[in-house]
């Protein structure tokens, strides 16, 4: 553990040194463009300091360290509220897929480094209006012809597409095959002619997801990342990366310490809220759940570090953490009484209960809805039968809409 402890100290020292330039105070009241620019500068500084691509291979610009090193850095980075959110999807899913599946290695390395430095941003074009949970039900068409593939259709819920330089996309290359079989996986330049990005506003008023329309968008065959009609496997690999990357026992909400501090200022029936059994139970239960998730993740990291395959329990983090965050946020607002009614525009899901609560449903849907995660556990881990699916094995173009 001493090597990791050294790493932790190094990270903490560097983060503290740059916090005045990039941290929460520096970001206060910046508009999105200025904040994004600050974020790009932060990523460049992080790369130069050696804290980027921590567990990626050295060949693609990474540091080649263990996943534990990455975990430690992220835990240290979190409280500073650095402007790194714009790059989360980019570095979490599309770029790792590129590293894994792109045949032009030199080009992949170039992209990876540009993404690590915040110079380029990638988005992931998966979900569609007709199928959120049902990824394989997508309808965007990819037709092969002169000069490559022509894409037509519409994607939905694409995070940060408005800032993306590139995207990875799954499209239907053969509608006469059953729905999982006729899909192909590409990367594309988001500035290609025919690509239109339209922001979607979410319940909390923010604009980080988008609709993306494709109108005769030309994609050369060299940008194909899967075999023709073999894109579903690559897409599933991406989602698996997403599920493991999504480890945060606070469910992307505030830390438990904030709940305790909030409760410390509250009164329940003329007594301190922290003395109330219900509040104490909520704290103890949340701690037990988070400690369990943290232990699962540490065990997985340690197994990976020792060259073992981590257990399937790594996939349950989001399911537990976001639901727990949703309830805890509701309770925090209730405890605050009329002070809980306030809405702070500047707040984040990490430091504000109202913001955390209003955004929590998004967390329960994005990256696999609760119901899909439960089905996955039941079918893949416990070996229970698949649900009845009337569309199974039916050619896609014969499934009733």
């Amino acid at each position, binding site marked *: 553990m001493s090597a990791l402890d050294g790493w932790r100290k190094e990270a903490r020292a560097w983060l503290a040194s740059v916090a005045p330039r990039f941290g929460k105070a520096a970001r206060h009241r910046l508009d999105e463009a200025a904040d994004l620019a600050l974020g790009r500068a932060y990523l460049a500084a992080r790369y130069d300091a050696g804290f980027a691509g921590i567990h990626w291979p050295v060949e693609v610009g990474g540091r080649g360290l263990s996943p534990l090193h990455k975990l430690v850095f992220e835990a240290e980075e979190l409280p500073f509220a650095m402007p790194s959110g714009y790059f989360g999807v980019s570095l979490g899913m599309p770029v790792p897929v590129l590293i894994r599946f792109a045949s032009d290695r030199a080009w992949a390395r170039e992209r990876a480094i540009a993404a690590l430095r915040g110079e380029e941003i990638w988005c992931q074009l998966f*979900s569609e209006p007709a199928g*959120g949970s049902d990824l394989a039900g997508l309808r965007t068409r990819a037709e092969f012809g002169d000069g490559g593939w022509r894409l037509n259709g519409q994607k939905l819920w694409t995070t940060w597409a408005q800032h993306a330089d590139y995207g990875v996309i799954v499209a239907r290359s053969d509608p006469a095959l059953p729905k999982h079989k006729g899909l192909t996986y590409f990367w594309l330049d988001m500035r290609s002619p025919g690509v239109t990005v339209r922001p979607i506003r979410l319940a909390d008023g923010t604009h980080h997801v988008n609709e993306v329309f494709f109108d005769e968008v030309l994609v050369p065959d060299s940008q194909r990342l899967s075999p023709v009609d073999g894109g579903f496997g690559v897409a599933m690999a991406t989602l698996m990366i997403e599920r493991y990357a999504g480890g945060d026992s606070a469910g992307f909400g505030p830390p438990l310490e904030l709940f305790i501090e909030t409760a410390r200022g*509250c009164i329940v029936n003329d007594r301190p809220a922290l003395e*109330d059994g219900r509040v104490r139970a909520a704290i103890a239960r949340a701690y037990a759940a988070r400690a369990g998730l943290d232990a699962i993740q540490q065990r997985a990291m340690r197994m990976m570090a020792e060259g073992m395959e981590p257990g399937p329990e790594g996939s349950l983090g989001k399911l537990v953490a976001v639901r727990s965050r949703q309830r805890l946020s509701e309770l925090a607002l209730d405890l605050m009484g009329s002070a809980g*009614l306030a809405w702070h525009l500047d707040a984040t899901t990490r430091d504000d209960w109202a913001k955390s609560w209003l955004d929590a449903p998004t967390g329960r849907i994005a990256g696999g*809805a609760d119901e899909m995660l439960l089905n996955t556990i039941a079918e893949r881990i416990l070996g229970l039968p698949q649900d009845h699916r*009337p569309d199974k094995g039916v050619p896609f173009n014969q499934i009733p809409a």
Partner: protein
Amino acid sequence: MSILHDEAQTLIGTEARRVLEAHTRREVLLGLLEAGGAYDRGVWQAAIEQGWTAIAVPELYGGLGLGLIEEGIVAQAMGRAPAGVPFLTGGDGIIAALAASLHADLQARWLPGLASGQIIGAVTLTTGPAPLPGRPEVRFRDGVLSGTAQAVVGGAHADIALLWVVDEHGPALAFAELAGVRREAVASFDNSRGHAHLHFAETPGVLLAEGQDAFTLARTILARAAVLTAHEQLGGAEELLAIGRDYALTRKAFGQPIGAFQSVKHRLAELYVLIEIARANCIHAAARAGHSDFIRAAAAARLSATEAYDTAARDVVQIHGGIGVTWETGLHLHMRRARSLAIEQGNMLFWEDLLAKELTGTGA
């Protein structure tokens, strides 16, 4: 004990739903979220025209002389909309407090205006960190009020207020005109509720009740507010169930309506169960006003309706997937309302404790 609505009551409900459906537009409600301190004036005008403001006012003062049952029926329709006006519950509290007081002058001065909707009333029993605190934040001394009532529902627009204050002897109930009071609108996640801090500075006020009388009356008024709010919550939960059911029947995944999957079916069935229990408790509680078991009936209604609306907000959004969390679809209007209603009339812990005290005789 009227647990079956009579014809007139049923008609009030049908009319209220019709009128509110006609006057409610989602774009307006979404717009209100971003306009601090505004409310849905069209709906408020309709409420006045329908006579909803007059329901509980005695006939002597231009009211209809009806009671909590009829107000509850209207509140349920308001919750379903969900309406962008927060005044009926506060109005009921002031009407009840004035009616219970011996101040015939105040009654004559204000009840007709409350009945006609020209006067808007607010109540401060649950503002601040906890409901009905032992040490209220507003002081009453020598006929004037000072201090701040925090995040009062409708406070941005109210003309008069019923206040939970402290005088030389302890907590008391006071009445005040708000004309000269500084109001500080609170940016809220449910802006149409008109939340505002009311800063009293040597504001003239009238004492309505002191000592044990004040506690008893405050609890009764709070219980009435809980019953009305429970009806609003019930209406909101019902509407969400209807939306969720319709979506489950039309949205397809994996080749069938998502309503054919048991996870969705059972979620909606459990929600139906919570709603029917809340409905039964609401109907029962509204009919128990004035009886010795009113507090416990009100608490039961409040607890079950809060659970129903909270669950509906969580689960119906969840059933919708991504479309459920967009601004335009507007399910978050109900989600926000579920939370503001959960907070405004005393949180769950307060009502659990109040009910436990009633049932066990033991305080916390």
